[in-house]
């Protein structure tokens, strides 16, 4: 539920600072804190916090390198920001009474469209008009073009939709299910033990899902950027 903490308006546009915005701010602050405070001592033998910072760095760096290639290094900060933002958004939502901003379709859709636009712009910048050859698979017979090209265009345009709905649906479903079982706990009184036990298991599952969905979102971002850089 979106709650306006500080109502704000620019002209007629509502830009109130909501609980969603608060969680985004917390996520940005925590990510920055993790990376900056973690590497504060620049230790040869890293502390726990520094290990987490370095592992996330090397994890995303390896993903970018494997999926986009060496020229993908320029997208590394972007991919890293997306991964950390989605991961922290998902994870912070697991804290009771907090809010999951990635469970709102408008947020995931905006992120997905942003990724889509970046990929498309990169593709145009790299390949110019040649980019349109992406919609016709190489080696296919020419007479198939009337069928293949529309299919490819539709599949390309549906990328932001599938990317955003996957993340949104997973987050909303998982977190809603936990809320539902938590509700059962109260209505069942003494027998509320069972929904709690289920919720404990669900919580473990949700922790995995949050990390997995962040990973999926990020790797698909990498794949779209790979297509943009290499076309086929």
């Amino acid at each position, binding site marked *: 539920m979106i709650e306006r903490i500080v109502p704000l308006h620019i002209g007629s546009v509502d830009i109130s600072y*909501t609980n969603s915005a608060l969680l985004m701010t917390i996520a940005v602050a925590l990510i920055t804190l993790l990376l900056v405070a973690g590497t504060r001592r620049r230790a040869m033998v890293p502390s726990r916090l520094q290990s987490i910072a370095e592992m996330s760095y090397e994890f995303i760096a390896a993903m970018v390198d494997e999926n986009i290639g060496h020229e993908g290094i320029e997208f*590394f900060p972007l991919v890293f920001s997306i991964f950390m933002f989605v991961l922290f958004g998902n994870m912070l939502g697991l804290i009771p009474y907090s809010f999951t901003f990635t469970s709102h379709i408008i947020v995931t859709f905006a992120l997905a469209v942003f990724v889509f636009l970046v990929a498309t712009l990169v593709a145009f910048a790299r390949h110019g008009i040649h980019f349109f050859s992406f919609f016709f698979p190489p080696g296919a017979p020419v007479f198939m073009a009337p069928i293949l090209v529309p299919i490819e265009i539709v599949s390309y345009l549906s990328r932001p939709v599938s990317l955003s709905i996957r993340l949104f649906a997973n987050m909303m479903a998982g977190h809603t299910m936990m809320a539902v079982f938590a509700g059962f706990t109260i209505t069942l009184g003494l027998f509320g033990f069972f929904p709690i036990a289920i919720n404990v298991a669900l919580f473990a599952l949700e922790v995995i899902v949050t990390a997995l969905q962040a990973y999926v979102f990020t790797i698909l971002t990498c794949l779209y950027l790979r297509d943009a850089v290499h076309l086929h």
Partner: protein
Amino acid sequence: MPQLDFTTFAPQLFWLAVSFVVLYGLMRWLALPRVGQVIAGRREHLSRDLTRAADLKTEAEAALAAYQKTLADARAAAQAALRETSEKLAAEAAARQQQLSATLAAQVAAAEARIAAMKEQALADVRGIATEVGGAVVEKLIGASADAAKLRTAVEHAAERAW
């Protein structure tokens, strides 16, 4: 469904844009270079240490080889000196031995010559005495002195028979 409440879209989009831009800026220009620097620094440090360890190992091996070479040289020199000295000593000893045996041989020869001379002398003396004794015996027995030449011949004969 709160997700489809369109009135919340504008504030969500606005703050998403603000947060993400801030996050991207912080990551791009502050956090990621720092972490990258730390990782690169460690990698460099490790490779530097490894290179130094390899250098030290090569140095130690060189030192060992030099030590072994020095040792072998010293041993060879010692053996050469030993051999030379023993050869010199052996030569000296042989020379001394030879000299000694030559001296001894000369002395032996001189002694033998002296003995032979003395023996000759003694034999000659024996014959003179025998001749004298024979002359005296003959004079006592027959009262006349015997012929000296005959006596000497008889003594010669007897001496010849005696040895």
